[in-house]
């Protein structure tokens, strides 16, 4: 394990990505399952240090795009660059080094059910670094408290947590190596509005403290308003629009109008005005 630690140290240098070059650059990506094409020539840029909200219909392929970027789903065509490297051109080792620089929060948390929360959070530390047990414990507790969970949760098993706590614990695990990018798949779905609001604040705070870039799949209009710097909308396998929330609200695209000015969205806006 010590060797792994040393090898990956090299990759941990501040990114060599030129200024203004997108930290994630997706070009003409096609993904299909059998005859069912999900992504059809999708283009997307994520800028360094921003929180990008990714919206789209349920079953539209948001999770698929996220999983394609992190290499869990094979694309049929197209290029994906992360940190300025084309992921297809990297050797296994280089890819592992890059994987260490991002953290992933899966839609259902994906905490290891047979490990306690503390062990879950420590898992990446144990795999990648050679640290004393004391330091790992302290880092795990620090992360847990940073995502807003009390320290006693550390000794619980995932099955003993509520849905919101699972999400937070999973976020703590995805952040434990202080990644440069985090991918969040519907982090606030299934949370009460207060927790969801806190989660947004948390993501923003973490972005500011850790200098994170955040790729967030979400349906939560409040998250889109409060947390996201920019929004990308997916429809029919392509990104149909990107821009700050103001642009989205002004857009004439029928799908965007339906999404942002639909019944739920407008009742929310009305509520704000009232």
């Amino acid at each position: 394990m010590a060797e792994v630690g040393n090898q990956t140290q090299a990759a941990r240098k501040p990114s060599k990505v030129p200024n203004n070059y997108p930290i994630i650059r997706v070009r003409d990506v096609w993904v299909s399952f059998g005859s069912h094409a999900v992504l059809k020539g999708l283009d997307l840029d994520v800028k360094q240090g921003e929180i990008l909200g990714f919206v789209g219909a349920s079953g539209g392929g948001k999770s698929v795009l996220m999983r394609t970027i992190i290499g869990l789903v094979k694309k049929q065509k197209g290029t994906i660059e992360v940190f300025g490297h084309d992921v297809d051109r990297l050797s296994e080792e280089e890819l592992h080094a890059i994987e260490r620089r991002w953290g992933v929060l899966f839609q259902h948390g994906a905490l290891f059910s047979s490990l306690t929360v503390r062990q879950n959070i420590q898992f990446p530390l144990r795999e990648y670094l050679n640290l004393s047990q004391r330091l790992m414990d302290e880092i795990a507790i620090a992360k847990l408290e940073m995502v807003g969970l009390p320290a006693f949760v550390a000794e619980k098993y995932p099955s003993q947590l509520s849905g919101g706590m699972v999400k937070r614990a999973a976020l703590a695990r995805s952040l434990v190596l202080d990644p440069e990018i985090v991918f969040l798949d519907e982090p606030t779905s299934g949370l009460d509005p207060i927790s969801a609001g806190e989660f947004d604040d948390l993501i923003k705070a973490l972005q500011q403290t850790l200098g994170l870039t955040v790729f967030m799949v979400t349906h939560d209009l409040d998250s889109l308003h409060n947390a996201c710097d920019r929004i990308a909308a997916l429809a029919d396998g392509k990104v149909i629009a990107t821009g700050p929330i103001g642009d989205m609200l002004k857009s004439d695209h029928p799908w965007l109008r339906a999404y942002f000015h639909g019944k739920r969205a407008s009742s929310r806006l009305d509520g704000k005005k009232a």
Partner: protein
Amino acid sequence: MAAQAVSLNRKEEAGKLVLEAAGRWISSFAGQIERLVVDLETKRAKSAAVSIDASHIEQLDTAGAWLLERMRRDFEGKGAKAEIVGLDPRYKVLLEEVKQTNTGKDAEEQRDHNAVEDTLGYVCEMVVGFVKDSAEFVQFLGAAVVTMGRVLVRPWTFRFTSVVNQMDRAGFRSIPIIVLILFLIGGILAQQGIFHFRKFGAETFVVDMVGILVLREVGVLITSIMLAGRSGSAYTAELGSMKMREEVDALRVMGRDPMEILILPRMIALIIALPLLTFIGSMAALFGGMVTAWLYGGFTPEIFAERLRDAISWSTFWVGMIKAPFMGAVIALVACVEGLRVQGSAESLGEHTTASVVKSIFLVIVLDGFFAIFFASIDW
């Protein structure tokens, strides 16, 4: 690797201890940094004021920030006045965040383990577990019988399709492997018999031996053990993962009894399938014995059949067959009880699946022993 990625130097300045932290204080070097911090602590002189100079830190993340903070706390804990100065403003927020963690106000104590205590605890747990198991099996069996009674009174609630489906999966699809295994066992028994009986010229008794052994014991035992491993484990895993994902609870809140929908069909399927499989398997074993006797011992099939007719009676056949449904019930019972005991984790699922197979094979053999005593006493 950079020669000196991180460093921590100490200086005395006007009665004040100054610690100069420099380099990249990030997770990748956390092990190294921690060693520096610990080294420093062991050889540190008493000092009333400590200032941790962070102005040479090029890069900082949570782990590094925590180590700075930990150092500061350690000095404070020893009664010194310690502060972190000169940190790049962009890392201020991070340090503030980290300062609020690990305050230990609601941490849960981790328990120390003691070998003797643990062993004693383990033994006690096993005994209690055994008593609990027995109680639970009996209770579960009772509940199953009550449900069966209710279904008998209202036969339209009987899940016929489900039973057929389970029989297909647990019974029909195990035919090939059971036939194969029992065919081989029959052959091996016959070969061993011929080999040893030949020494005192009693080869023909091989037919008696194979016939009685297969029909009374081997057929039903091997079939039960195979089904415990093949279908019992599947039952436990299925029910266990349904339990894990609250599917069992979902059934319950929809006013459906999991006992009636999930468990009864499985039990009935095994109770019906096991005798049928035992019969098929026993026939395969006899056939295996016959083939071996023919090729290896020179008995023609006619002679074999003739001998067999003399050697066995209906009771020999029934002894095996009567046992089969009970074995099926035991296997299904254990499998379902273990499945419903699964708790949230994947590990627990594995544990209970193993327990299901081990316990059902054990119970099958114990039950077989009781049957042997019973049949001996009624002279069958």
